[in-house]
């Protein structure tokens, strides 16, 4: 069923806000999505009704809290078609990438080895590995992009050809270009060159927008974050093939993650608990569950269809404005909802300020992708990103704001 946006919007309190008498037009969901009431209620319910710690208690409240937390795990596993034993909750996607860097990369890579990543990565999927490379002396190679914003697969094939690439870190969907990368293709390339290559995907921008099947992608690890998929801040996950997770050593140590401890020895808990030290984010897990159910009720195919159609309109609207250039693919089938653009003669900060004065929220800056900005030859861009609660009525305020910025600033 197609998404009925006017009805859907009623579920999002923020979207009813007015700013200086103008309707709020939220076009920054790639940075963080809005939160539906169902998610707020789920978190509220935990605090008002089942407030207690997980896993240890034998009383009703603790059982309820444990159930909320573990149900979030099975909900997420179902949502991304993965085994719940491989779902590790983290604070956000950044922590998920760091977990992979500490629990696998730093324990397995050294001089002579190569880690392959791309020039379009968010710093979250780049810096943890760069940092490890500096400490451990392995080499990092970067897949370049083509002029239409796709990963250059021929170059990727060359980069893995010597069989030294042991780890691949790649985004599923770019937060700047919108590109949907062929991660399955990259995984196949890497494994053809070296059977035991481990493929880690940053799925932060994909999970909110696309139906994702971890099993079908055939990758080893997949990072995501709750706050871009209608969930609360403070929860994300690293999804790992259980067989691989079994071989990984903990990143953080402490309570919850042990099976037995003596004064001078410790045995780890089973997966995934081995990777979740300390009291977890229980309310946030309950919120994430509610967000997943909200998305499931709409259907991710419908979410994707809506997004694809609206992104097409957004691209049309932007390219119709004099002096506006859009980055990233124009082919909607390989594109998500984030659209970065430039306005000739107007700095992105000034574009953002003008849009803000009209109630339109867009992101401006480098979007935590400084290497990509250098590839594009810019310091910063403005980025509009539509989501399931946006509709074509959000486009005229954007266009008017950009035109006003041109009139106001262009020298």
């Amino acid at each position, binding site marked *: 069923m197609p998404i009925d946006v006017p009805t859907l919007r009623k579920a999002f309190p923020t979207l009813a806000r007015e700013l200086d008498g103008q309707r709020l037009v939220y076009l920054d969901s790639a940075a963080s999505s809005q939160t539906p009431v169902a998610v707020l209620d789920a978190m509220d319910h935990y605090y008002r009704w089942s407030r207690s710690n997980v896993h240890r208690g034998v009383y009703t409240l603790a059982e309820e809290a444990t159930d909320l937390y573990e149900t979030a795990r099975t909900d997420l596993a179902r949502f991304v078609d993965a085994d719940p034993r491989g779902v590790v909750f983290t604070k956000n996607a950044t922590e998920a990438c760091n977990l992979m860097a500490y629990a696998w990369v730093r324990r397995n890579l050294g001089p002579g080895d190569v880690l392959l990543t791309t020039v379009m990565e968010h710093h979250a999927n780049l810096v943890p590995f760069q940092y490890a490379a500096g400490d451990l002396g392995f080499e990092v190679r970067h897949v370049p992009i083509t002029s239409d914003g796709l990963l250059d697969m021929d170059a990727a094939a060359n980069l893995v050809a010597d069989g030294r690439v042991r780890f691949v870190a790649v985004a599923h969907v770019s937060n700047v270009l919108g590109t949907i990368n062929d991660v399955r293709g990259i995984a196949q390339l890497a494994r053809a060159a070296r059977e035991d290559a481990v493929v880690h995907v940053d799925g932060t921008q994909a999970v909110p927008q696309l139906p994702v099947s971890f099993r079908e992608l055939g990758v080893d690890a997949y990072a995501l974050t709750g706050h871009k998929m209608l969930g609360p801040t403070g929860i994300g996950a690293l999804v790992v093939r259980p067989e691989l997770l079994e071989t990984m050593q903990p990143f953080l140590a402490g309570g919850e993650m042990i099976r037995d401890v003596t004064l001078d020895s410790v045995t780890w808990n089973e997966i995934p608990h081995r990777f979740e030290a300390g009291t977890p984010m229980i309310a946030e897990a309950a919120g994430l569950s509610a967000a997943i159910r909200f998305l499931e009720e709409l259907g991710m195919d419908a979410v994707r269809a809506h997004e694809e159609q609206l992104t097409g309109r957004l691209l049309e609207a932007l390219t119709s404005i004099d002096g506006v250039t859009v980055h990233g693919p124009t082919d909607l089938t390989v594109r998500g909802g984030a659209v970065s653009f430039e306005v000739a003669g107007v700095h*992105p*900060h000034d574009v953002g300020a003008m849009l803000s*004065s009209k109630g339109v929220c867009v992101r401006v*800056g480098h979007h935590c992708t400084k290497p990509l*900005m250098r590839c594009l030859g810019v*310091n*910063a861009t403005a980025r509009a990103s539509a989501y399931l609660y946006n509709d074509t009525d959000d486009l005229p305020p954007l266009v008017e704001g950009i035109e006003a910025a041109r009139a*106001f600033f262009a*020298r």
Partner: protein
Amino acid sequence: MSMEDLYQEIILDHYRKPQHRAPVLEGESVHVHHSNPLCGDEMDLRVRVVDGQVDGIVFDGEGCSISQASASAMTVAVAGRELDDALALTEDFRRMMHGDEPSRPDDLQDGIAFQGVARFPVRVKCALLGWMALRDAIETYERGASAHTVEHDDDRPPSG
């Protein structure tokens, strides 16, 4: 937020017709290059010092209207000043950006138009870029060097 709160007419004038904007300065004593990590803005500032005074000053760079206009207004406000005096005025401007009342509003000249920027925390760094470059240029000159590059936000209390 209204556009008028942030973009005073004086600011737009400096943006559209910047003062002392040039890529070179004859007899340059010191050249600093500053970039703002938040938005990638770039600023080149060149100063000619004669008899302990700012005898010539030019800036060049890329950035938003606030950063470019503020640098332009800065060059006008400090031209001809003793180096120590220019440093003191810089600190007055910096503190104004953090919400203090400026103690030398007249000396800041058009710089005073940026007072409202203090209410837009993400833009404070833009307004400070040129002024922090000036401070660095003077400190670099006083160290006996002729060039310095700073690739981070240099908004800090004065050294020494």
